[in-house]
């Protein structure tokens, strides 16, 4: 109970935000209407994805220093989980865009940037498959991961701000600080972001432990 309380916390928060997000009060706004509830699900996906990529780059740096295979496992599983969150973020965003902007894929810089960023991390996965030798694979892919991370940050946070975008916070649109989220919405949105981050960490640790077990059984059978 001591060490895994946060898993219960994450599950409870996500359950709470699903219920409160679908039943709670939201302001009646033109265009958005009830689809504003998607903000509780679409935005936290990206927060969780960023956290996963951040964990991955931290462990890649650690792996370059330590050379322990465990660090490499955490790095690769974080990227895998981050890619899943990216996929769900794109899907929920496409559903939302279809309703509010009338097109599942409007030519929006933020959409294109996130698609390119996911290509970058898919390239990381391909690079891992291209290398057979274990230590070399860990090292080379860690180097690529660290190299790609700052470019990803530029892509997602700097480029969309230079151009006009439909998303809030870009091209003169108000961002989250100036967001007129009502008080009751804030109390769903903020926990939702935290909850999905915790769930992401949970999935990542599970996958990491499976990978570690496989690694050790492989070593014993050899």
């Amino acid at each position: 109970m001591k060490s895994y309380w946060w898993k219960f916390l994450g599950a409870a928060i996500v359950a709470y935000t699903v219920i409160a997000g679908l039943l709670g009060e939201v302001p009646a706004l033109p265009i958005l209407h009830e689809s504003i509830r998607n903000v509780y699900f679409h935005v936290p996906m990206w927060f969780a994805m960023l956290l996963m990529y951040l964990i991955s780059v931290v462990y890649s740096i650690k792996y370059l220093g330590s050379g322990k295979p465990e660090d490499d496992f955490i790095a690769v599983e974080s990227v895998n989980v981050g890619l899943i969150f990216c996929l769900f973020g794109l899907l929920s965003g496409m559903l939302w865009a279809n309703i509010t902007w009338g097109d599942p894929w409007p030519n929006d810089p933020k959409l294109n940037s996130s698609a390119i960023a996911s290509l970058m991390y898919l390239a990381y996965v391909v690079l891992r498959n291209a290398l057979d030798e274990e230590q070399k694979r860990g090292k080379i892919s860690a180097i690529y991961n660290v190299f790609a991370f700052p470019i990803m940050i530029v892509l997602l946070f700097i480029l969309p701000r230079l151009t006009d975008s439909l998303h809030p916070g870009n091209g003169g649109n108000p961002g989250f600080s100036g967001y007129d989220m009502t008080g009751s919405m804030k109390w769903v949105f903020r926990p939702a972001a935290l909850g999905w981050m915790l769930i992401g960490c949970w999935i990542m640790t599970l996958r990491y432990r499976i990978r570690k077990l496989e690694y050790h059984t492989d070593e014993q059978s050899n």
Partner: protein
Amino acid sequence: MSFLEQVRYLVYKEMLLEWRSKYAFNSILLYVISTVFVCYQAFRSVDGVVWNALFWIILLFASINAISKSFVQESRGRQLYYYTLASPNAIILSKIIYNIVLMLVLSLIALFVYSVIFRNPLGDPFLYLVSVVLGSISFATVFTMISGISAKANNNGTLMAILSFPVIIPLLIVLIKLSKNAMDGLDRSVSYDEIFVLLAINAIVISVSLLLFPYIWRD
């Protein structure tokens, strides 16, 4: 030998090797000119947006071809010899400098040939030149590091493209925007943002390369 001296000698060595064979330079030059000619024959006349996009696509593939060679043309034994002589940072920095020079010469020739064969009015030629210079520097810095990575991964050409394209796309977006501003002859103050972003990305890429290359090199 001090660090700067090492870099100077290594750049000199790269240039000397290139000067003796002239293989990379001539082949890429031929590649650029023939691609320009194919595009000219295929399109005859195009509007500004397509003209600009075509130019950057030609430059992109030319630079991938030119730079992907930078770590494979030397044998493993010789690389080991360098390892005993120079620091890894001096090696990557000299490769980056050499590739920047190579790309600058190539892209300026390409721009000249392209605009002579394929006439298109430029609103602000100087700013367009600046964007080409910044573009060739960016291609050189990004591709040098990626070619180092893919050279360690048995160096197949596909891997180089897969690894480098997502990384270069953000730069390419900014470059195309900057050069479009130059074509339309917009006021230069409009483009300061783009120039600043390009310089910042290049600074980040070079410093990350310097930090990471020692890990690739130590094998």
